[in-house]
């Protein structure tokens, strides 16, 4: 194989490598949890360091959906359509007690439903609101779910996290 | 009749009545512990102090007879101060047991503390330590530290059951309720002492730590334990029924209730219930089971037989009997009498040998239909082959039907449709079982031994597929009885 093919192959590999590292999240969060997602994107807890791009403008090019805030029954149709518009391998992070179970509003007669009734959720982040570190943790779990083969960097994180906690 | 004014309100009471009875009649708020409408006056808790115009000293309401034109008040400052202090005397040696006490939430001390309490306890000294968790008998546990020595339970065992098991031992603030060595509190009305105990000293072993009082809702119905038909309150929440307490009913049970009746909630809970219709041991969808039953009965026509127990309400008996005599034109109606020998017993207070709530009602209807067949006739006809299909309106309380197994083995030979509330592995020998709703899940009337109508109401709905006999009969008549999965009330 000519030098050109090898070069382009290496370039392609590098591009894939980068491509894999970067996930673009689409943020569908409202209520107090949206503050925490903003925190996660802020300079202190910057989630770009962990391979998350800044929140996508349009849904097509996002491959991680972050859901938060209480989900009313009438809202579940739009969420399903959002989820269906995402292409390729997609995963969902649900953050905040309101999304996960409807928390205090569930039994209050309001038609508030848990996120599991609407979307298949990969990572649950409990808390009200969850700390930005918890969202960063969730991001790492999502990356681990999407790229199951051994990832030394992730194992390093894992080791540090257990020791550090 | 004597006239007197209480807190400004005019009231007329019979002569010789005490002030407390006037308060009780007027439903006026007054603090009391040792007085109980069904017991004699003890006058020891000293809470029910009232101020009578023209009498400098406060008088106890429960023992002072009403005189003509008496002006009584229990809202004056002097009375409030007296009740506040007497309540404080009750509380100084009372243990801080509210977190582990079953009575929390419905305790007399808590209630009156909220209206009359002092809110800053001044007692700095050591509390008197007494016996905790004393086993009084098979039903009741005693905690003498919580006991405020109002002697209601002692008077109950003296006057109502006349068995004198309880007494107050020792003297002064070391007095303790207790039983004598080999005489535990084992009479059949022992749990009534738990109801009338204003504090958590007497707790029932059956309900011990099972649920907190404020998690329970209650509805009023009639006990289906025996033919007395006492008025009761059933306590429940979405997880099941938890306990049964009596309600005051002048005509039948007064303030009391027997211990057997307290277990009637157990057979309504899901763990004992027949939840789906079954053909043999196989679970069958309800529509299909109803269909096969209808076909079988229609095919048998006038040779179909009905074996009925007196555990169903009057409306249900009417429906099933009309179905048999009009639609099927069959006169093979047989009455299943459970405990033949102890049927006429009566213990002098509330417990009757006839363990079915609606015997009288069923008898009246059977007389109308002039059906006098009993189990022996049905057995003979079944063995001789005259009857092929039998519809059994089975008993709701299996425990009071000891001869159940014999009936099942005989009927398992023919085609039998057994309507039952509770599950029983013996029933798997039968061709078809249909779930029926229990007494707490249907409206209706029983007729008790004396012919009085005793209403029951549907307080809960645990088994979605359970039907009442009316629904089953309307299903046989072709109506579509689709049972969606209703959420329990």
């Amino acid at each position, binding site marked *: 194989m000519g030098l050109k093919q090898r070069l382009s192959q290496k370039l392609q590999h590098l591009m894939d490598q980068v491509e894999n590292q970067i996930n673009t999240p689409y943020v569908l969060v409202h209520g107090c949890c949206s503050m925490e997602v903003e925190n996660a994107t802020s300079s202190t807890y910057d989630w770009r360091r962990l391979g998350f791009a800044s929140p996508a403008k349009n849904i097509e090019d996002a491959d991680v959906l972050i859901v938060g805030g209480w989900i009313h029954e009438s809202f579940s149709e739009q969420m399903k359509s959002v989820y269906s518009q995402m292409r390729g391998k997609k995963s969902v992070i649900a953050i905040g007690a309101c999304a996960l179970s409807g928390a205090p509003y569930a039994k209050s007669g309001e038609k508030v439903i848990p996120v599991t009734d609407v979307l298949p959720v990969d990572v649950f982040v409990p808390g009200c609101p969850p700390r930005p570190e918890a969202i960063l943790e969730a991001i790492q779990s999502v990356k681990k779910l999407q790229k199951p083969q051994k990832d030394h960097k992730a194992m390093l994180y894992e080791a540090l996290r257990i020791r550090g906690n | 009749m004597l006239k007197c004014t209480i807190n400004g309100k005019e009231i007329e009471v019979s002569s010789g009545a005490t002030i407390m009875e006037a308060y009780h009649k007027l439903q006026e708020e007054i603090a009391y512990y040792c007085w109980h409408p069904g017991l004699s006056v003890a006058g020891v808790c000293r809470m029910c102090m009232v101020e009578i115009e023209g009498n400098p000293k406060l008088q106890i309401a429960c023992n002072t007879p009403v005189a003509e034109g008496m002006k009584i008040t229990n809202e004056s400052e002097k009375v409030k101060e007296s009740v506040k202090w007497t309540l404080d005397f009750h509380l100084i040696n009372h243990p801080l047991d509210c977190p582990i006490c079953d009575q929390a939430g419905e305790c007399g001390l808590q209630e009156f503390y909220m209206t009359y309490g002092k809110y800053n306890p001044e007692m700095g000294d050591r509390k008197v330590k007494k016996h905790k*968790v004393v086993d009084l008998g098979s039903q009741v546990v005693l905690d003498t530290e919580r006991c405020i020595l109002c002697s209601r339970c002692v008077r109950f065992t003296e006057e109502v059951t006349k068995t004198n098991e309880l007494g107050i031992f020792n003297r002064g603030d070391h007095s303790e309720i207790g039983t004598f060595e080999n005489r535990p509190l084992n009479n059949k009305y022992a749990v009534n002492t738990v109801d009338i105990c204003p504090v958590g000293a007497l707790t029932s072993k059956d309900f011990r730590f099972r649920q907190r009082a404020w998690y329970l809702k209650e509805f009023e119905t009639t006990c289906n334990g025996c033919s007395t038909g006492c008025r009761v309150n059933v306590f429940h929440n979405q997880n099941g029924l938890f306990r049964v307490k009596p309600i005051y009913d002048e005509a039948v049970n007064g303030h009391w209730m027997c211990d057997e009746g307290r277990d009637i909630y157990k057979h309504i809970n899901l763990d004992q219930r027949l939840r789906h219709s079954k053909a043999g041991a196989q679970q069958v969808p309800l529509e299909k089971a109803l269909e096969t039953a209808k076909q079988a009965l229609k095919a048998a026509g006038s040779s179909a037989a009905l074996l009925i127990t007196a555990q169903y309400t009057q409306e249900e008996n009417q429906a099933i009997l009309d179905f048999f005599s009009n639609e099927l034109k069959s006169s093979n109606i047989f009455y299943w009498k459970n405990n033949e020998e102890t049927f006429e017993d009566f213990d002098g207070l509330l417990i009757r040998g006839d363990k079915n709530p609606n015997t009288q009602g069923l008898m009246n209807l059977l007389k109308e239909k002039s059906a006098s067949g009993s189990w022996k006739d049905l057995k003979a006809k079944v063995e001789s082959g005259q009857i092929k299909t039998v519809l059994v309106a089975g008993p709701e309380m299996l425990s009071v039907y000891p001869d159940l197994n014999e009936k099942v083995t005989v009927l398992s030979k023919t085609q039998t449709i057994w309507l039952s509330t509770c599950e029983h592995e013996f029933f798997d020998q039968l061709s078809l079982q249909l779930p029926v709703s229990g007494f707490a899940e249907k409206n209706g009337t029983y007729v008790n031994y004396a012919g009085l109508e005793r209403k029951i109401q549907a307080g809960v709905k645990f088994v979605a597929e359970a039907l009442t006999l009316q629904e089953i009969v309307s299903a046989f008549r072709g109506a579509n009885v689709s049972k969606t999965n209703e959420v329990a009330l």
Partner: protein
Amino acid sequence: MSVVKRPSSVSQWYLPGIFVGLYHTLKALLYNLSHRQKMQTLDYPEEKFEYSPRFKGTHVLTVKKDGAIRCTACMLCATNCPAQCITIIASEHEDPSVEKFPIAYEIDMLRCVFCGFCEEACPVDAVRMGPEWQIPGISGTNFVKGIDFLAFRSQLKGGISSVLDDQERHGQGI
């Protein structure tokens, strides 16, 4: 009254705008490179943010001196909880001085809003809000935490003893 300054014509030129922008970016880049510590970004796994002791994190069931959990299953926390996420099953203890204790104490972490009402309602300091924040879990993990997680998880190192012990309480004649 604020007077809007009209932008000068020089600032509307194209090239100077680019260079001014580049200048600021390079300045910030060089500053950050030279003052690594001052950088605001927290390198999450290596560097951890220190929380105040009042932080309301995952619950802790305190223990008595003899190692049994302090909770007497009085259900006050379950009653006070706005999200009704605590379920307790009480039963009788064989030692009569203890009398009542929970055989099951579960908190549904998905429902819990970590408001601390249970901590306030508890009369015997049996449940507290711990210092750690909630760790996310992938779908399928059990989020309903029982007594062994709440009282004896590894971070608690054998359980945190409650403020007042039963024997002391009885000793004082309460």
